[in-house]
């Protein structure tokens, strides 16, 4: 069994011939929390779609637990996904089911466990995210942070080997943000998972993750442990860490010279 759960080499991907990923190299070791950072639209969600087999790579190597994801058929994909959890940006809880039924969903769909055992498992998962008392609420009654914790409990319901988190911190207050960050770390360590977190929150990431990748323009711009990242003087990382508006990532969308747009042509 290889030490690397997710291995990506020279991964290319294009939507309708518009390239989004242009040669990504990335590995996630078992038991690690890996952060992927980059500006909006750089292809982070797309990378998750590739890892989960929703879309297939144009070229390059992409393996999860030794399986070539791009080559799996529907059956193989579904089998792989049972061992994989994904936390969507706003939780994506099923709005017509209670919190309990949301967490029980995969247990009921994929196992023949008796209802008492499902109940014990669900309450244990909800307890791990601190929401056992909320089990009979509906998703519409939850705050954003709570919804994401329930989604987290749902994602770990079948004890997956890998969890993908798509911007788990977006739109949360600082307290909820810290709670989610700690939960990701704790669940990864106690359940022996591997976690890949897409996020903009550099401070939270540098605090809790094991390894960071910066993606820009469809390529890995920089990578390293939080300590290495902080120590590196790369201009891109510097801009990201300090939240500067202009730098290697320009403030202006590419445009003709302003003077030309204003009709002030002196040519």
């Amino acid at each position, binding site marked *: 069994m290889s030490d690397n759960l997710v291995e990506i080499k020279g991964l290319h991907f294009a939507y309708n011939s518009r390239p989004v990923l242009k040669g990504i190299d990335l590995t996630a070791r078992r038991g690690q929390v890996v952060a992927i950072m980059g500006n909006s639209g750089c292809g982070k969600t797309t990378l998750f779609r590739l890892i989960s087999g929703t879309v297939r790579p144009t070229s390059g190597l992409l393996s999860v637990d030794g399986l070539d994801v791009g080559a799996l058929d529907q059956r193989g994909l*579904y089998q792989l*996904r049972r061992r994989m959890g994904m936390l969507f940006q706003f939780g*994506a809880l*099923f*709005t017509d089911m209670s919190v309990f039924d949301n967490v029980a969903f*995969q247990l009921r*769909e994929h196992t023949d466990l008796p209802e008492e055992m499902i109940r014990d498992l669900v309450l244990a998962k909800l307890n791990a995210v601190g929401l056992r008392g909320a089990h009979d609420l509906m998703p519409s009654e939850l705050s954003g942070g709570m919804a994401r914790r329930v989604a987290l409990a749902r994602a770990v319901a079948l004890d997956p080997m890998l969890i993908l988190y798509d911007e788990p911190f977006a739109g949360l207050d600082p307290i909820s943000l810290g709670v989610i960050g700690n939960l990701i770390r704790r669940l990864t360590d106690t359940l022996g998972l591997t976690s890949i977190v897409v996020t903009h929150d550099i401070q939270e990431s540098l605090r809790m993750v094991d390894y960071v990748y910066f993606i820009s323009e469809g390529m890995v711009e920089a990578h390293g442990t939080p300590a290495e990242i902080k120590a590196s003087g790369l201009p891109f990382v510097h801009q990201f860490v300090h939240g500067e508006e202009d730098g290697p990532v320009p403030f202006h969308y590419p445009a003709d010279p302003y003077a030309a747009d204003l009709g002030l042509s002196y040519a």
Partner: protein
Amino acid sequence: MGVATRFFLLTMLHSGICLRRPQLVIKEVYSAGVLSLIIIIVSGLFVGMVLGLQGYDTLQTYGSEEAVGVLVALSLVRELGPVVAALLFASRAGSAITAEIGLMKATEQIAAMEMMAVDPIARVVAPRFWGAAISMPLLAALFSAMGIFGGYLVAVSVIGVDEGAFWSQMQSAVDLKDDILNGVIKSLVFGAAVTVVALFEGYDAPPTAEGVSRATTRTVVTSSLAILGLDFVLTAFMFRGL
């Protein structure tokens, strides 16, 4: 059209779950059928009362006002029951199905389900199809029954048509196969058509607020047109023997 057909075939292919877990279908019978009861009952009653009034008025000229029962029953069982109930069903239940599935898509619930290795066609679409398709003939039958009751109220209780004649003429004129069975077939076809349109529009909707609202409108418009078009075709086959 081709995509919708493929979608329908996929739904049929994945309908096994509905037999294995009938409670999934029952839940949808509740939201599509039971929640449509009020509008069906009230509309049926009023349509029947209007038929009673109009029918009496016309038949009186020919001195055959007892036949008002026949007129009310045949109009409802053959045409108005299936058609009006289906139109109401499209705007009440069809639009709700489209909005629900469109929103499930927009909020990534469908994607989440696929990520959990559960096929949304089997888990979300198929139970809704069967739930709604089962509800529709029952609603149409209820609509006709309420309409006949409304016609009775107006003709017998208010105007004073002879009660015995009202019922006996109706019984001898309405044929089990030609009228009732054909009416049931119509409502089955309309129910399936409305539901497929509603499910497809929801599943196909762009995952935005605007996309979902447009899809909901399209469901009502498309399925209403489909009902009326299919009604013509079916009527031509059934009653003219084309």
